[in-house]
């Protein structure tokens, strides 16, 4: 279990850059907990504190009974940490990197091979290749193998899917789901809102604060606005038209649709007719379920 209470962290000569403004949350055993928010929101600072790499200004974090400040030596034994930037040894081969990390923790590849088998098997054919010469997807698999080789209780993954294509991202989350089955606590951050659904619970983070913490469905259920989709050709022109309507509170492009939040008084059929009268003949307006991205935007704007 992870218990985080009121973490503060600031940087700069006069502590004028505040990265974390009192963050509190708990993560239960066997959970995948996602910290979701844009770059610069404080995700990396939070994870570095939990990995005992930097000290908080105030507040506390206890992971499986160990304090990240006082018990940092134990913390480093029980966590597996995958930083956002690829941090393995580029000049060592795939196998040498893995062996290095196993040795650091007093174990061997053979002893814990069962933990990494699923993932490592995919890169094993290239075990003699230098890590620096691997493709992005392979580097990511090697980094995860290295973070797992000492049989950690808690995995801390800082933006493991940034810059990764949608197919490889899906594969990566499938791997995490299998690791969870083995009883690991997984703490993972991402800027991709569509990955929220792969977590048991999520926290939405913006400017150093958790603005909501819940299950993905709980976040969606708490959405209070009236949300519709507008579909038609000439989307960018429709967008301008919608922005000018006084009963429409927000309008944003969402793929092939525009999502709008409206005043209670407006009817979907009424808006459709309004747009048809403005010569958008093929337009369609209908209510939709919000996505986590809609929720994030509603909570931050």
């Amino acid at each position, binding site marked *: 279990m992870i218990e985080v209470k009121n973490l503060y962290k600031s940087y700069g000569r006069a502590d004028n850059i505040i990265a974390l403004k009192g963050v509190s949350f708990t993560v239960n055993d066997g959970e995948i907990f996602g910290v979701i928010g844009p770059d610069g929101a404080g995700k990396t600072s939070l994870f570095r504190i939990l990995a005992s790499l930097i000290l908080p200004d105030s507040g506390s974090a206890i992971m499986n009974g160990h304090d990240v400040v006082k018990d940092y030596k134990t913390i480093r034994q029980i966590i597996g940490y995958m930083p956002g930037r690829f941090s393995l040894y580029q000049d060592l081969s795939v196998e040498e990197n893995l062996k290095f990390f196993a040795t650091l923790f007093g174990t061997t590849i053979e002893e814990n091979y069962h933990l990494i088998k699923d993932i490592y098997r995919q890169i094993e054919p290239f075990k003699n290749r230098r890590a620096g010469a691997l493709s992005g997807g*392979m580097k990511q698999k090697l980094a995860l193998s290295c973070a797992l080789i000492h049989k950690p209780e808690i995995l801390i993954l800082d933006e493991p899917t940034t810059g990764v294509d949608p*197919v490889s991202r899906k594969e990566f989350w499938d791997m995490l789901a299998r690791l969870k089955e083995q009883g690991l606590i997984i703490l993972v951050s991402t800027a991709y809102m569509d990955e929220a659904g792969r977590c048991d619970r999520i926290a939405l983070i913006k400017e150093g604060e958790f603005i909501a913490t819940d299950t993905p469905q709980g976040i969606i259920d708490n959405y209070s606005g009236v949300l519709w989709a507008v579909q038609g050709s000439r989307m960018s022109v429709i967008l301008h038209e919608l922005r000018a309507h006084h009963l429409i509170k927000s309008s944003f492009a969402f793929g*092939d649709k525009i999502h709008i939040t409206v005043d209670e008084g407006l009817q979907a059929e009424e808006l459709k007719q309004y747009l048809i009268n403005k010569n958008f003949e093929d337009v369609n307006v209908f209510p939709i379920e919000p996505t986590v991205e809609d929720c994030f935007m509603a909570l931050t704007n």
Partner: protein
Amino acid sequence: MRKKVIEVSNLTKKFGNFTAVDHITFDVDEGEIFGFLGANGAGKTTAMQMLCGISMPTAGEGRVAGYDIIKENELIKRNIGYMSQKFSLYEDLKVWENIRLFGGIYGLSEKEIADKTDELLKRLDFEQERDTLVKYLPLGWKQKLAFSVAIFHEPKIVFLDEPTGGVDPAMRRQFWEMIYDAADRGITVFVTTHYMDEAEYCNRVSIMVDGHIEALDSPAALRQQFNTDSMDEVFRKLARKAERF
């Protein structure tokens, strides 16, 4: 017929016995927003480097912004804009210094730079940030400024390499509205992204798999062709065929 800003045929790049880009042929119209998609390692970056005139093709030919990519690659560099998430602006320079630097690199006069800087800062509502070091700007602001700087010299085409990675959802959409404005002014936009909702905002998208262009059409036509209602699914169906990673 609309003017072509990119026309390439059989463009190929080999590194030793590895073919990173394998005979790609396509064109892009003036003012078009063209999405260049593909899995990691599919060859997008290599292809883009050839289009920007910074990497010589092993075979094939083409023209970008009116210049031959083999014989006139220096002229290409001068007539395009470029921005990526990884490199865009100098963090230790102020907002106005970055604008001046890039304006100067692209050969604008001091007078032009001064006039256009005022106009740009006003349009972005950035006037009070004129003397701010770029490193102190929030990421979303930085990306907006970087895009404006990339098209400051009014290039025929701007190349955007994952410009919105990690950007706040509302900012990401504002960024795309800037892309639309640029396209309306006739600037062609060539953009890569891993956000499939953004693929929908392009006039046409191409999807690269193992060095080939496996599909090229409007998002609506691609969805129809692959019998699905999401670009995510189109991408998944194509990328599943990939053999290298």
